[in-house]
């Protein structure tokens, strides 16, 4: 059964953006991004299994500008997906559905993500974590 060719009424161009909407689609987007990160994880494991030379070249890439950018995005994605995922789990047990609560928990997820990403990177870059 193919999709009909009839036009849709405009939605994204019209509806006012809310944090709740943004977090919802970001949950999906970060999910897919994290799958790509999983790929990298498998490659890393294989490199460790393959020996020092392979791990060294992978580390060279990972500590380069592209690698660092990827890891930064990945860290952000993990915490956003994890935080929002927990928010989802609370919804699953019936808590937090009122719009105000949903907005507030949404902001909590954003704050948590930024904070956790910052702390993780601070520790990774040589803090006393």
């Amino acid at each position, binding site marked *: *059964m*193919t*999709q009909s060719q009839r036009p849709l009424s405009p939605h994204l161009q019209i509806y006012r953006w809310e944090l709740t909407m943004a977090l919802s689609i970001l949950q*999906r987007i970060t*999910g*897919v991004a*994290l*799958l790509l990160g*999983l*790929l990298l*994880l*498998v490659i890393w*494991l*294989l490199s*460790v*299994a*393959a*020996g*020092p030379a392979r*791990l*060294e070249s992978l580390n060279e890439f990972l500590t380069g500008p592209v690698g660092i950018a990827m890891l930064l995005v990945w*860290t952000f994605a*993990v915490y956003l997906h*994890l935080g929002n*995922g*927990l928010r*989802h*789990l609370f919804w*699953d047990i019936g808590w937090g559905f009122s719009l105000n609560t949903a907005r507030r928990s949404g902001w909590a997820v954003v704050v948590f993500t930024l904070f956790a990403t910052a702390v*993780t990177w601070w*520790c*990774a*870059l*040589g803090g006393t*974590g």
Partner: protein
Amino acid sequence: MNDRLRSPISRARGLGSAKSGTAHFWAQRLTALALAPLLIWFIASIVGLVGAGHAEVAAWIAIPLNSVLFITMTAVLFWHSMLGMQVIVEDYLHENWVKLAVLITLKFAHVLLAVTAVYAVLRINLGSQ
């Protein structure tokens, strides 16, 4: 018993009901729950391994608890990912054979990658080269 509850068109199409929707929902939540502590462990460990050489990384993975947690985390990650990707594909692809082809490809890829990760961890345990 299911046949009493099926509509004539579903019987004609022969595809049956979705049947395992609840199982999918539950598995998604269960894997999510398991991943929360596993990911905290993983990120904390990786941050600790920043700057470590191959020998140290391999030795760390070869510690029994770490290997067990790593394999568990990877398996659960791929399981969780497949559940999520299934929902995404079903949301956007409606042509039956395209949807099926993409889902099967994704599933096979997930399984292969998960097995690869397990292999890598085992290989590291048995000492590389």
